[in-house]
């Protein structure tokens, strides 16, 4: 199997599986229990928190564990909007966010908030000037993703936050860092980012766990109620093995960050160059379509459009050779769900349903890329022969 769908999820590191098994077996106590078993479990959480706070260079008090990226985004947006509604009812986000943000924004609109959706450039980035002109007196929150999950475009959080806060100092800045955590060094305090959503399973950690960094300066209300765990910010017995697994996966990812980043950029460059040699293939999300700008994009995502081939058919053709990738849009009977990101970057309509995403991890090798390339070279002409006229 050649797994090129690491933006969907990653293989859990063996070390993480081991550590979690051990905790499930030996440290099964409820961290809220008063006895020793509870204390031991609580210790695991504290240890994890220290690791993660260290990586983000924030205080341990500013980390809240959640069930994953979606819950982190929900807590960040709903929690902040409701806690700060007296300061204003205006929110800003982008048209290319993950559904966890977009759908939550839709919900907040139903609750009476007004939301501005910023467009993006052809390479998928938010223009700080556009953000500046969207900020109003009653804007309370800006949410901009760090790395786009479909095309790998990278936003300059520091610049965006600076611009927004220059106009309205009290503005809260959230970023969905699900695709960038473990790939980039993220220091929220230095960048002026107040809320950061992170997920475990995109960095070879377990599914069902994530975190939200909440700056101690931010006013926020919980969205889940119950036993008052995590200082009432997120009730529910903590997922101790998951939290320990998330921390270990993060530590491993950051220990090898530089080396892996270099390697993935090499993979990306090689893959991109070879793809462009094939007939009717174009790449998305590369600034000025110039491969020398590749380092302005995320190292692990390549979005490519294949003229005259339906994405889903090509995906299944690759699947038959055990190469797993993902398509931007899911096929449904008569109207394919069109990708918001691909539409927003102004991709030609005819290519919307012809675009695949290839995403790498530290475990992807050059030979995997070469195999994928040769299968593509073989399948594309075959599939084009039978395309719809």
């Amino acid at each position: 199997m050649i797994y090129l769908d690491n933006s969907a999820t990653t293989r859990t590191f063996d070390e993480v599986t081991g550590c979690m098994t051990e905790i499930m077996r030996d440290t099964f106590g409820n961290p809220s229990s008063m006895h020793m078993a509870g204390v031991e479990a609580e210790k695991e959480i504290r240890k994890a928190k220290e690791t993660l706070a260290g990586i983000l260079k924030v205080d341990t008090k500013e980390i809240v564990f959640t069930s994953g990226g979606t819950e982190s985004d929900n807590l960040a947006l709903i929690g902040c909007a409701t806690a700060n509604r007296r300061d204003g009812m205006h929110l800003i986000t982008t048209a290319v966010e993950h559904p966890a943000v977009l759908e939550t924004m839709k919900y907040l609109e139903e609750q009476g908030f007004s939301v501005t959706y910023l467009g993006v450039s052809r390479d998928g980035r938010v223009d700080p000037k556009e953000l500046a002109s969207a900020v109003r007196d009653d804007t309370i929150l800006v949410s901009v993703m760090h790395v786009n999950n479909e095309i790998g475009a990278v936003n300059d959080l520091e610049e965006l936050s600076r611009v927004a806060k220059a106009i309205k100092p009290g503005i809260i800045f959230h970023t969905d860092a699900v695709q960038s955590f473990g790939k980039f060094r993220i220091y929220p305090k230095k960048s002026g980012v107040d809320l950061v959503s992170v997920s475990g399973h995109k960095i070879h950690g377990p599914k069902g766990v994530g975190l939200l960094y909440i700056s101690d300066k931010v006013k926020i209300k919980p969205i889940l109620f119950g036993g008052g765990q995590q200082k009432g910010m997120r009730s529910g017995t903590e997922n101790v093995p998951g939290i320990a697994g998330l921390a270990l996966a993060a530590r491993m990812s950051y220990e090898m960050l530089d080396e892996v980043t270099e390697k993935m950029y090499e993979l990306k460059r090689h893959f991109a160059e070879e793809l462009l040699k094939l007939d009717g293939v174009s790449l998305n999300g590369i600034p000025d379509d110039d491969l020398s700008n590749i380092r302005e994009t995320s190292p692990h995502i390549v979005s490519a459009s294949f003229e005259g081939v339906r994405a889903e058919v090509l995906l299944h053709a690759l699947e038959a050779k055990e190469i797993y990738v993902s398509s931007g849009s899911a096929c449904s009977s008569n109207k394919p769900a069109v990708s918001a990101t691909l539409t927003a970057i102004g991709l030609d309509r005819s290519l919307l349903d012809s675009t695949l995403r290839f995403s790498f991890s530290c475990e992807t090798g050059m030979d995997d890329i070469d195999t994928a390339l040769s299968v593509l070279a073989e399948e594309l002409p075959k599939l084009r022969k039978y395309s719809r006229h």
Partner: protein
Amino acid sequence: MKYPAFLIKYAEIAIKGKNRYVFEDALMHRIKLALKYTDGEFAVTKSQGRVYVNCLTDYDEDEVIAALQTVFGINAICPVVKLADEGFDKLCEEAVRYIDEEYPDKNRTFKVFAKRARKTYPVRSTEMNCALGEAILGAFPEMKVDVHEPEIELHVEVREDIYIYSRQVPGPGGMPVGTNGKAMLLLSGGIDSPVAGYMIAKRGVKIDAVYFHAPPYTSERAKQKVIDLAKIVAKYTGTICLHVINFTDIQLAIYEKCPHEELTIIMRRYMMRIAERIALENGCLGLITGESIGQVASQTVQSLAVTNEVCTLPVFRPLIGFDKQEIIEVSEKIGTFETSILPYEDCCTIFVAKHPVTKPEAKIIRRSETKLADCIDELVEKAIETDEVLNVI
């Protein structure tokens, strides 16, 4: 009330003359299978033209009835009380107790239907009707007898033992699967074909099925969806032997060589041919499709005629005169609708022409098919070799 047994009523089987035991045995077999995944232990017995499900352990009545309602051939399910014969006075007492427990609200009308199947029993049925009626009226003065439209029909049957029942839960009707041969269902992921399979099985026909998939144009999930549909239909029909045939190369050859507006009709002709081959190899006596006149271009009367001419086995089309809405109603009733509308089926839309022929002529279609002469026999053989057989339970 916990009933010690359920009386199974069947209609059409009763008129089958000397074959009757074949039908009854098939019915008992289907009942046993249906109860296999139900909590509790049951013994299915037959005596004097009656089938009983005897409950040997604790059970959940709703679950048992739901399971029995999947068995074709059952007309009604009656929860019964079973008594040993301890004299007529005791029987009157039990009848009163039955009414008391079964109907807490006594303000109702009733009629007694006594049946003396054991002719040696000392009380005649008309006498029983009167005496039991009196006993009940004596115990519950607020009850009334109504011989024309009673709210409660109290049945008391004297056989080896004595059975009392008043409730009848409708069954699905039809005939037990396996009593009318076997046929091959052309199963797609749509709404119609599962319903067609259900309806033919209801007439006692055992079902095998064939599904044509076209990777990479259709996905693994589309195939899983068809398996899921077969599973739902199998609740009624028993195990379905599902043949999965890889149809991609035939489809590509037709696409390449034949006029595009004739694509669907030619494709269907090859599906019928292959289905017939597999049907004959597996002892099926007919083919089943979900076609309904005029629903789509390939189901006009002309198209059906052109499709039909390629096979010699009879093609059963139980939905032929149904409107879409009527088909949907059945699919909702049998539980296939939700799965049928999952959006995986149309991934091979590239093979559908914008304006397919609606009035094909056999002569012209046959001529178009000659363009495939150099390769089609081999492709058909190859497709049949891909047959992946799944026993869907």
